[in-house]
């Protein structure tokens, strides 16, 4: 990223729904609630929104891929909200980084002035989310599906990491526990009011051993949305803007975000790290240089990433504690922390919050949000 683009754009509104499981609400119903809330929160009306960047993909094995049923497109949302869009795109990778980056790029190039980004997820009643009835698989899955490998890659990574660095499941619970504790402070979180003990964790059922049920994020029906605009327009809106100080692709090396934003690692006061699988938090801490290689399992000990810790990580509970919005929760929370609107979760005096989206199997983007 060209340093000239620091703080040229900002998140100015956020919207979200309660995260529920098999709630009976439709996907368009939750999508509209989040979108309408985000636009209103920004002090705007749908008539102001002239750009849209969506992330419609339902990545689960049992998905239909039907627009307005388990996926929702820019055409659907543009029509449902009555938007007059100058620009709109949907991005095929499930994690929301591509849409947020495209929104930023559209703003700095003058393609659009107010962009809505949405992620909505639907858990279809009566269907096992991750189950596959497929009898034949092509593409990359021809090398995995015949072996009964669905969501197993992270378990293979974890087994090797534990072997190489002596990490333990008790240490992985430090991550899961921190996310669950953060979720207790988030009124929208699925797991709010439901703490998790080490015994609960160690006695829960295996999925891909050495990963258990609580090492995976929680599929939900729910949605999140943010509105972005240019810095000059942002100052006229109701909330203190959450400026985009930097945005870099995960194809770049881990310290690129600090150079791009001019905000060093030591100045980061909270990090929203993608947590679709609990070991991803360790991978991100090492990739970003907060911990040395093979040392993240030690870094996360003693509540260091939990509420009140030295580096609070994923302060809304993440995909594990709040619900699986594929990074939109992370973007929304990063913005709310910078805006000073995170309520009980607010990290005192926070000026800089890093947001890291995706993981090695799903390349995405890293953002630095700041008070500017």
């Amino acid at each position, binding site marked *: 990223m060209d340093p000239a683009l620091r703080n040229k754009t900002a998140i100015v509104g956020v919207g979200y729904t309660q995260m529920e499981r098999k709630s009976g609400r439709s996907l368009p119903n939750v999508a509209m609630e989040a979108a309408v809330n985000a636009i209103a929160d920004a002090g705007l009306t749908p008539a102001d929104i002239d750009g849209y960047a969506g992330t419609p993909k339902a990545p689960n094995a049992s998905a239909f891929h039907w627009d307005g049923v388990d996926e929702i497109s820019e055409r659907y949302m543009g029509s449902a909200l009555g938007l007059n869009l100058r620009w709109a795109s949907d991005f095929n990778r499930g994690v929301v980084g591509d849409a947020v980056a495209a929104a930023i790029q559209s703003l700095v190039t003058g393609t659009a002035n107010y962009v809505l980004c949405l992620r909505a997820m639907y858990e279809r009643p009566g269907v096992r989310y*991750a189950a*596959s009835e497929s009898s*034949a698989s092509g593409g990359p899955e021809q090398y*995995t599906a015949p072996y009964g490998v669905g969501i197993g890659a992270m378990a293979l990574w974890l087994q090797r990491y534990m072997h190489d660095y002596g990490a333990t499941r008790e240490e992985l619970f430090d991550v899961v526990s921190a996310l669950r504790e953060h979720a207790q402070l988030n009124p929208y979180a699925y797991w709010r009011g439901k703490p998790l003990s080490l015994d609960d964790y160690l006695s829960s059922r295996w999925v*891909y*051993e050495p990963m258990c049920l609580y090492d995976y994020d929680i599929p939900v029906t729910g949605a999140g949305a943010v509105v972005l605009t240019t810095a000059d327009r942002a100052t006229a809106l109701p909330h203190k803007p959450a400026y985009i100080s930097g945005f870099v692709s995960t194809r770049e090396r881990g310290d690129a975000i600090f150079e791009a934003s001019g905000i060093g690692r030591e100045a980061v006061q909270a990090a929203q790290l993608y947590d679709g699988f609990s070991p991803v938090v360790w991978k991100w801490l090492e990739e970003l240089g907060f911990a040395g290689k093979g040392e993240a399992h030690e870094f996360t000990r003693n509540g260091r990433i939990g509420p009140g810790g030295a580096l609070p990580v994923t302060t809304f509970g993440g995909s594990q504690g709040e619900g699986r919005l594929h990074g939109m929760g992370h973007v929304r929370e990063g913005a709310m922390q910078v805006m000073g609107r995170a309520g009980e979760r607010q990290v005192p005096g926070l000026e800089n919050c890093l947001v890291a989206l995706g993981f090695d199997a799903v390349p995405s983007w890293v953002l630095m949000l700041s008070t500017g």
Partner: protein
Amino acid sequence: MTTNARPIPIPDPESQPYWDAAARHALELPYCDACARYVFPPRPTCTRCLGELRWVAMSGRGTVYSYATMHESYMRGFDPPYLVAQVELDEQSGLRLTTNLIDCTPDEASIGMRVEVAFEDRGDGVAVPQFRPEGGA
């Protein structure tokens, strides 16, 4: 075939020789003579020099790089628990296949364990390479 048969691969032009070899119970991978390097998964040309690839018979021996035990029945035809593994082939560092470990219990599996290829027939002339402890039956 029964309705709960295990999934079979759908070959594409790049992978067809891989699955054709598997059907004959042979493990073959594309190899670049110029770079002295195997390419997997198969690509149209060498991923380093973009030169021609030819299919080469492998020893079928390797070591377990990592493994995991699946305890849920997400995939049709698989009764948990079963072992999934990445096997690093002897021919090249970092050359790994995702596969099943068979003839081996989860307690017996370990990283670094020596394994050899074995083929599971899935009917209709389709077979898939799996791995079992070296020197097994």
